[in-house]
């Protein structure tokens, strides 16, 4: 889609005591479907509700209660699949993953092991330095989230909150195509960006809307290429899965520390055990989650309460026809249509709100100027207020108005910054403010000449110095600007000062 000269990034290499090691990473991202109701019940998914208030009978595993698929969640999974250029399976099916835990009331999680709704796709992950990795998606399946066990409210009892129980998740499973911690974070950022564009997942990691399991292994240089050529995992090292991380920082730190742990084991003559581990950010280490004796046998089998999920080709095509413009396409268009740099286009397309804001400004003014003002002035000002673009007090029309005044020469760049602050804090129409407050730039050379003459006459000593050192002409320019209240056209002032001083 992007016709840009991107090169493949180098894998992260960690120097061990004996040799160099490369990292190989695959991810399972759990994205909460942006749905008001759960995957198999009508209960609300609203975050932050009173414990156990968003619970239908079926969520609580009451006897005789049955799941009924929420069609909206199915649609979001299809949208996400299409957004990741993935194959959509017209027939998929739900399976039960059986295990006992108090926050899993049915005693099983309904998931899609054998027949996921979305098959293979791919994501372009750009790293911001001109390199980009294509990460293959293996599958996306729909599944239920579990509830929350609370162990720290009482010394003897545990409590359970079922509000999350049964909330729809999309598990997005990648191939082991990610080669370093930064790439892993960039991959999650890109997935989140695509899903936010699609509206299929809010991507709020703090609220647990997006969580990642990371599979990490290390291998000697050259081995990964053998894996890619054959798709035979035997060429790769034994992997460990680090569960349930909900911050980009932790994902990167966990990969790094886990890779180093594995390298130390291998170089010490040991072997890495395939297992599930947890990352402890306080101690910056990963720890084994469960011992082998407790290894779960999930006894997956097709859920007999649910018929296979069959969707029509026309339904998928209908969804495909109404997909929004996705980040890669939007960025390419910004570069092509507005002449933006790769970096500026990336920042402006990071989220749909920023992109829409920029486009609204650029629609009536110069694209590059619009990008500069949005990126430098507006984003900077919003950051100071800890606000985001959706909370901007300045509308795109107002910002476009300011830019138009600069372009027409009515105000200088410096005045424009003052005007920006006025419009940002007080509101109002930029052109009217300029007129009402006399902020219009003075381009009348007669008035400027008079001001220059007066300053030269009042400062003969400075004139002498400036004639010996022309760099001091700037002092006269400054005095003129001061005398005209900053409204004099700076280019005209420079020219007249130079002429009058006969430089």
């Amino acid at each position, binding site marked *: 889609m992007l016709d840009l000269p991107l090169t493949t990034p180098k894998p992260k290499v960690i120097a061990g005591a004996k040799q160099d090691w490369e990292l190989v990473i695959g991810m399972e991202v759990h994205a909460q479907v942006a749905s008001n109701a759960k995957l198999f019940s009508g209960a609300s998914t609203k975050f932050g509700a009173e414990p156990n208030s968003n619970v239908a*009978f079926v969520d*609580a*595993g*009451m*006897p*005789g*209660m*049955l*799941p*009924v*698929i929420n069609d909206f969640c199915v649609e979001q999974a299809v949208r996400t699949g299409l957004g990741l250029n993935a194959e959509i399976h017209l027939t998929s099916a739900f399976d*039960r993953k*059986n295990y*006992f*835990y*108090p926050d899993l*009331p*049915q*005693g*099983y999680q309904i998931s899609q092991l054998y027949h996921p709704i979305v098959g293979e796709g791919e994501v372009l992950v750009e790293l911001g330095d001109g390199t980009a990795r294509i990460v293959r998606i293996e599958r996306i399946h729909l599944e239920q989230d579990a509830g929350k066990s609370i162990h720290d409210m009482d010394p003897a009892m*545990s409590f*359970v909150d079922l509000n999350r129980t049964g909330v729809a998740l999309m598990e997005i499973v990648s191939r082991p195509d990610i080669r370093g911690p930064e790439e892993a974070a960039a991959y999650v950022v890109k997935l989140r960006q695509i899903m936010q564009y699609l509206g299929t997942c809010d991507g709020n990691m703090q609220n647990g809307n997006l969580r990642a399991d990371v599979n990490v292994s290390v291998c000697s240089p050259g081995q990964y290429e053998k894996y890619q050529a054959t798709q035979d995992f035997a060429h790769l090292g034994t992997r460990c899965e680090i569960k349930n991380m909900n911050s980009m920082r932790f994902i990167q730190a966990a990969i790094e520390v886990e890779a180093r742990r594995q390298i130390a084991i291998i170089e010490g003559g040991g072997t890495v055990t395939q297992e599930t581990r947890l990352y402890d950010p306080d101690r910056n280490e990963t720890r084994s989650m469960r011992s082998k004796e407790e290894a779960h*046998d999930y*006894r*997956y*089998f097709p859920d*007999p*309460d*649910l*018929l296979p999920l069959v969707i029509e080709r026309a339904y998928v095509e209908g969804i495909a026809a109404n997909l929004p413009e996705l980040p890669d396409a939007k960025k390419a268009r910004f570069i092509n249509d507005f002449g933006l740099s790769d970096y500026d286009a990336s920042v402006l397309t990071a989220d749909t709100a920023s992109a829409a804001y920029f486009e609204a400004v650029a629609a009536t003014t110069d694209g590059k100027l619009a990008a500069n003002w949005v990126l430098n002035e507006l984003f900077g000002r919003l950051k100071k207020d800890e606000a985001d673009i959706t909370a901007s007090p300045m509308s795109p029309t107002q910002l476009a108005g300011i830019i138009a005044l600069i372009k027409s020469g009515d105000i200088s760049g410096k005045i424009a910054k003052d005007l920006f602050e006025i419009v940002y804090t007080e509101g109002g129409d930029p052109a009217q403010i300029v007129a009402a407050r006399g902020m219009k730039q003075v381009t009348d050379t007669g008035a400027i000449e008079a001001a220059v003459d007066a300053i030269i006459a009042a400062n003969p000593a400075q004139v002498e110095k400036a004639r010996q050192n022309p760099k001091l002409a700037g002092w006269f320019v400054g005095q003129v600007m001061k005398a005209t209240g900053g409204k004099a056209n700076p280019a005209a002032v420079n020219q007249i000062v130079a002429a009058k001083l006969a430089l």
Partner: protein
Amino acid sequence: MSDLTKLTIAGARDALRKGDVTSVALTEACLNAIDAADALGAFVHKTPEIAMERAKAADARIATGDAPDMCGIPVGIKDLFCTEGVPSQAASKILEGFLPQYESTVSGQLRDAGAVMLGKLNMDEFAMGSSNETSVYGNAVNPWRAGNSDAALTPGGSSGGSASAVAADLCLAATGTDTGGSIRQPAAFTGIVGLKPTYGRCSRWGIVAFASSLDQAGPMTKTVRDAAIMGRAMMGHDPKDSTSANMAVPDFEAMLTGDIRGKVIGIPKEYRMDGMPPEIEALWTEGTAMLRDAGAEIRDITLPHTRYALPAYYVIAPAEASSNLARYDGVRFGHRAKLAPGDGITEMYEKTRAEGFGPEVQRRVMIGTYVLSAGFYDAYYNRARKVRALIKRDFEDVFDAGIDAILTPATPSAAFALGKEVADPVEMYLNDVFTVTVNLAGLPGVAVPTGQDAQGLPLGLQLIGRPWEEGELLNTAYALENAAGFVAKPAKWW
């Protein structure tokens, strides 16, 4: 009217509409009969207040002249159905104290049609059993006795309480559920009619799940006509059950012409089991003759995979059950074991489930867990699913070849003595040999009483129909019922 409890649904309906009887009178008669029949162990939770309230409402509705067929009819509800505010325990200790806040779709449809719930009926725990002996309440007893013996016989299972109550005229009809024969076998053991509809006809919503792909509710009644009336009231599409069929339910009663001339009845040779008692053999032969005499064409057919049905059933049903019963963990409802100091969640699960589930349920949960476990899944569960597909195809082949219904024995024997088979699970499982194929194939099946053994115990035949053709099936059953003229009643001893 002298003995109101002996009425059929059809008879009571007509009498209610004519004003010859009131639902209140009918209901009182049934409640009295129930109170006098504790020895049968059929009713495990009596609901006289609910019954009288609904009876009064039914009488008022009948008086408006616009009441459904089931309005005012006193019925019993199997304990497997969740009934709002009324204990619903699936005859298990683990659901001790559980009061559902919801009404199952099927019992709710009956309630909305004006049927009067008398109480909850005994059954095997979680519907797992063929003799009603796995119930936490103790077994129900068959109102029939063999000859002059006073030995207590099983009413069959799992819907043993339903069968006992209907046969003993404690209620006009009852709901049952059938996963491998749990309606048809007890119906045959007690001389009543039991219909298992096509899978998907009755909503499973609110019925405690045993094996979800096999479970189906159905009516247990005194006559085929009653099964047609009550069955229609129980069936229908329910969006709350994803496996419920969105198909219209015809007026089955209107289809009962008794005319089966030209119908083709299949007699499957594989159901002629080694060591089948001569009485069952004779019953089957007589039934075949009755249908032939009624104008049906009799054809020998083959259902070649029949002998694999029982093993496949005893893999699939426990597999699903092991997962369905995982929710009974003591965390949210029902029984929770008393814990010792230092016990954690694992001990809570282990103790609660060890105390709460009886031995047969534990056996099936363990079998189910085993057949789904890593390394055994393909050898057992997947193979059983393949067998199931073959069994289904066997039936499709004969229906495609023009067979309208299939006649088989309902059970391999008459009712047996309580305690006789409970020690040997495999012998107990063999009770289902003629019935499980129907569940595996999702077909409708009906047990009709057609004779008695030498000791006077009732015996039944099974008719199996095409999917969704309960009306045709019931009409064939009606013809068989008419020809057999089974009118015997158990002598009252309780």
